[in-house]
């Protein structure tokens, strides 16, 4: 296992010469990439930039082998039963769209989501509601944004699919997935988990969770942009209709007929992002060499320090529970009647601190609570206490001029 303190050396952007290195607190949007991920992608483009699975030459064979290797890595990474359950997508959103478009929903079927969903797990269901008339239920969270199991027990009855964000990008709260899935199954519902913000921070075991479908993105877990994974239990995937069809999804075609390929290819239409998938494989290898317990411990320490310091500022309100232990690497805050873009812009200008401001693709949450926007720090293992201190020092200055 790697020593977390030494990981910073493996990120080129954090070791620039003759320039101020960024203090990057926006990993929930996009994680930084270790050098080995970038090098693996370059290696593809420089040395074997060919197609996988169709060309009968050494270069093509190598790409096929690398893609297979990555699929196998991911299978092991999330402990899936078979590599057939691993479908490469562009991102989590595509995975959710694959599910919403491929699942055999009927009019009146119920989908249950939380009130803190990213637009990617809200809009597909709203569209489906308008298209075929499904019912969309929204499970309210407790006042501190933690999961309300009691309410869930009431609302899950009659639900066909529970589709929930595993760890929220809004507040970092992770839902009790195992219990949720267990209850759902007892009620005859299937469960999909949006694990985009979970997989970079905690180990996911799909067998242990017994989750039916799960999706995550490569770019939040040290991998390249444009890569993602949709997981489904094999027997469920078999029943799922392909969302995108065409090249690479069929065994043969005539002018009047076609035969779809087996899993997982039937869901991977068109030429894939081979460089990205190879890069994603490298990201998985990198994460495999890290101890998730240490990552969580490190993120907690950072989060605790920042939360404690922010709590000294009465103007600032934190979204979600005050206990940093419940918020993963997220510190999302706002000041009443203040445009939080100002904070982000000033921190960037003052000390090269990158944070995210806005509604973080969870507009529904902000609209319902009449909060204009917020400023969000999302921490990862490469962040340091010194960076957190710099942030707090500058935040204190900004607060003095705003208040």
């Amino acid at each position, binding site marked *: 296992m790697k020593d977390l303190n030494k990981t910073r050396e493996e990120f080129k952007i954090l070791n620039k010469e003759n320039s101020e290195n960024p203090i990057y607190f926006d990993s929930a949007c996009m994680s930084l990439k270790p050098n080995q991920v970038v090098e693996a992608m370059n290696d593809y483009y420089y040395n074997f930039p060919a197609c996988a699975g169709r060309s009968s030459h050494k270069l093509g064979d190598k790409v096929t082998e690398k893609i297979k290797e990555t699929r196998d890595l991911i299978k092991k990474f999330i402990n899936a039963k078979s590599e057939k359950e691993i479908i490469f997508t562009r991102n989590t959103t595509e995975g959710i769209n694959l599910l919403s478009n491929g699942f055999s929903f009927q009019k009146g079927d119920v989908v249950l989501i939380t009130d803190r969903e990213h637009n990617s797990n809200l809009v597909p269901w709203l569209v489906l509601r308008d298209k075929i008339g499904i019912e969309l239920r929204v499970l309210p969270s407790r006042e501190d944004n933690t999961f309300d199991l009691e309410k869930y027990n009431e609302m899950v009855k009659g639900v066909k699919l529970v589709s929930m964000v595993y760890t929220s990008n809004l507040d970092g709260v992770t839902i009790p997935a195992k219990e949720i899935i267990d209850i759902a199954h007892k009620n005859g519902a299937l469960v999909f988990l949006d694990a985009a913000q979970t997989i970079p921070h905690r180990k996911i075991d799909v067998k242990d969770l017994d989750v039916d479908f799960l999706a995550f993105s490569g770019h939040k877990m040290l991998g390249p942009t444009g890569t993602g994974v949709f997981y489904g239990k094999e027997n469920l995937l078999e029943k799922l209709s392909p969302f995108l069809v065409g090249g690479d999804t069929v065994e043969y075609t005539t002018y009047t007929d076609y035969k779809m390929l087996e899993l997982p290819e039937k869901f991977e239409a068109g030429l894939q992002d081979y460089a990205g998938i190879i890069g994603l494989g490298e990201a998985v290898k990198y994460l495999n060499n890290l101890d998730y317990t240490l990552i969580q411990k490190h993120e907690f320490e950072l989060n605790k320090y920042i939360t404690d310091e922010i709590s000294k500022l009465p103007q600032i309100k934190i979204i979600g529970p005050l206990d940093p232990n419940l918020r993963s690497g997220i510190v999302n805050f706002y000041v009443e009647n203040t445009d939080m873009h100002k904070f982000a812009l000033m921190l960037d*200008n*003052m000390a090269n601190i990158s944070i995210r401001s806005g509604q973080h693709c969870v507009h529904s949450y902000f609209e319902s609570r009449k909060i204009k926007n917020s400023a969000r720090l999302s921490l990862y293992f490469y962040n340091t206490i010194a960076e957190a201190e710099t942030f707090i020092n500058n935040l204190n200055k900004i607060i003095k001029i705003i208040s």
Partner: protein
Amino acid sequence: MPCLIALIIFGIMGIFSASHRALAKEAFSCVFKRVTLRPCNSDFKEKIKSKILSKLINRSLFMTRMVNKHYEILSWIFFILMVGSTIWVLRGGYNFYVYGSCNGLNESGFCAFDPSGENNKVTELDLSCPITPQIEKNVTLNNVDLSSFTTQNINSKDDVVLIGCYACDYSRKAYPDILKLVKNKKANFTFAHYPAKGNTTVLAETAYCINKDYPDKFWDFNNYLFTEDLNYILDINNSDSILEHFNLDVEKINECINSKETKNIIENQVKELNKTNIYGTPTVFINGKAFVGPKPYRVYRSAINKFIFF
């Protein structure tokens, strides 16, 4: 308002810099939305404000807080100042083009386009205790009799009067432009010599006598005095040879020069010119308007043009 200011400033800077062009585009989008009565949803205003605050915050917290609090008012103030200074600059540019000085006709204050004030320099007259204060606005041709001075009258509607001195650098500088103006604009032209520097009275007397006896030779002689080497023409020993150069009767001219009548006329001419309240040479009157100092040719031309440029 900050968007409008930014649009103008970044628009100008964007001509030279691509990064400012992008900002100008953002500012335009913001202004366009506001003009079409839509909210400016771009964060451009915040972006600019934050940049300013970020620069200030490490210098003075108090100042930063004030700027943050009164940003809109400050923006208005800067906007008004910008509009004011723009109008001032445009006015300066117009004045410089039309009058040769940013500050207006014959105004000798600092002008960025003419930092050394060349266009307003004059050879000052040594008038002790003048009756009328020697300021620009008092310079006039009213009640001044110019009939004894040599005139090229071609019955033009435009009149140019040059009061200059043969020995004065600035008069010598202006003279070719006046000739060019008179030629191009076909104007009536009167030349009046004022002995502002050196002993040039004798040259004025000589010119008067030549005009009297050889009127067709006067302008050639006048041109000669303004273009020939100054030391040469001022040397009294060269007088005869200069007259010979023009194939004139030296004796006759000298007799005229030494006559009492000539002395009186030249003396009266100076007295008459003093009525103009001029305080230096050259002073050019174009259709009665005084231009003090050697102005660029375009200034003289603009004064005659109907619409400044044509």
